[in-house]
């Protein structure tokens, strides 16, 4: 389960979902080898975007300390900026070893992965 689903269940306004969140124990995967896979909330600027400068400024703001903490507080997402510390609720979930494979490698390998899925019949 993604971290933000867990956080939203734990602090959401649905009573039964709170119970479910209470009854589970967090386990980070692959801790003895490549580490826990992490999704990203990514952004980019379209090639023909009209307000290129403003778009870049916004993306830069999103990677700064203030916005990175907001991601953690509001939606329980870990900071992507390595100089920003994990704090608050996220910190209480403990430290873990993340998978450091660059995210663009995933995109490059996706067609090959899909071919394996096709062959195995997942």
């Amino acid at each position, binding site marked *: 389960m993604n971290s933000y689903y867990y956080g939203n269940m734990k602090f959401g306004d649905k009573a039964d979902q709170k119970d479910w969140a209470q009854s589970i124990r967090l386990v980070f995967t692959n801790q003895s080898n490549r580490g826990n896979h992490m999704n990203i909330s990514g952004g980019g600027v379209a090639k*023909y975007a009209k307000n290129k400068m403003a778009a870049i400024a916004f993306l830069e703001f999103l990677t700064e300390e203030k916005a990175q903490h907001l991601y953690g507080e509001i939606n329980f997402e870990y900071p992507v900026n390595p100089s920003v510390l994990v704090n608050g609720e996220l910190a209480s979930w403990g430290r873990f070893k993340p998978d450091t494979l660059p995210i663009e490698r995933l995109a490059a390998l996706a067609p090959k992965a899909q*071919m394996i899925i*096709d062959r195995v019949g997942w």
Partner: protein
Amino acid sequence: MVATFLSNFARAQRQPVDRWSIGVILLCGLILGPVLAVLLSAFGDSGGLWSHLYDTVLGRYISNTLILMAGVGVVAIGFGVSSAWVISRYDFAGRRMLEWMLLLPAAIPAYIIAYSYTEFFEYAGPLQSGLRHLFGWQSPRNYWFPEIRSLGGAILVMASVLYPYIYMVTRIAFRLTPASLFEIALVHNRSQFWQVGLPLARPAIMAGLALVMMEVMSDFGTVEFFAIETITLGIFNVWLGMNNLVAAAQISIVGFGFILALLGLELYARSRQQYVSSSRNQTPLAMLVPTKAGVLACWAVCVIPLLFGFFIPVGVLVGLVATNDLLADFLAIRGIIGNTLIVAAIAALVIMVLSAFIVVTASFRAGSKTRKLALFASTGYAFPGTILAIGVLIFTGQLDRAIAALFGPQFQGILITSIGVLFLAYIVRFQAVGYGAMISGVRRLPANMMNASRVLGQGYMDSIRRVIMPLLKSSFLAGMMLVFVDVMKELPMTLLLRPFNFDTLATYTYQFAKDEMLEVAALPALMIVLSGLVPVMLMSAMLRRYR
């Protein structure tokens, strides 16, 4: 190349092509362009992916599609024909009400019933939770419950909302079957249903079945949600999962084969249908009066499809909406409602103007070849949205390149980055709906209306404006309503081709349902269902004409 084509066209018709006909030919080119683009790009190089797909998934795609079509077909015929027979032949309390209510499931797009059924039947849903509570079961190991997100579930879900197509045509066919034939069966003590009703309604049932199967073929929302790998979903996966447009186009060719077969089935069935409706009722046939148990059976036959196709899914949605804060929900989606209404209204207007132009010109001005071209250009409806989206994208890309070459590089990508590409997709797909509405309006006109006006000294344009257009107004409006609703609930093309930060009710519902948060999207889903009631009312008015 276009010029030589046009001059060849002119020669073949042995008459000069006038500018009206050229307009129609160009428009049909615009509509058929994306379909041709898929065909052409399939000849490109997919980097060896085709042989991989052929070795691994293609067989599964085809067999899943076939099983789904056959399963939905059988269940939809079961629902549609049995209820049509009961309504046509038995006189029982509530018959009049059930007659139109049986059309209600047609208001619900298959993906929405799939979402609400999953909400209802899944492990955490109210049904299984209730059963667990009732019998004290603790976990899924304590009991067996059918998985709704399966091939069988998809068959049930789709058949429940698609059977009205079959019900409607079969009901009309039973009504038009001469009473004398049923009386002969009575005299000889043979079954009225098996030996008279069913054989004579067969062409109508086949035509309805072809429509149902086309809908199954083009469905994207349900199979994606249930993870059933059909051809349509395969196209989507190969395109977006493997970034390979050429291979997606190649799978689309397989889809083409299916669609051509279904179009053929429909045409064949329709050509046979004439035979059924040729003889009209002289003396009305006495209805059968069922016993008390019979009344119950009649009700069961009609209520079961209604329950599955309308009351359970709508009940689930209403239940979800009722637990939410309605005003907050409404405010959250007001921008999306605005988007949806504007896009659907503009698309409906544009499509109807184009359809009116094409149909009127083809009927009163152009030669038989242009008429055939116009008919041919209205087959876009049969193609799955995922296939058309590919075609529209390739076609628009080429168009953009031509525009940039003509007008300068500042126009690079002007169409493909705008909402224009989505509108083109709507036109290609739903032009057929407008065409159908307009052509049926033209066919109802007395044959010599145009000639009379011309003989009385009015020019072509004046005749169209003062005689033909006023007479076609109701067809125009009916067609506009149908296109409006079709655009409103359209999912795959909107999902693939919309601009950034642009949602319609359908894509909004899709996104939340995908994350299993249907409660957030229950209100937009319910709104789509409500809008779908409009064509149901039109269908019901049509049934009444055959009473």
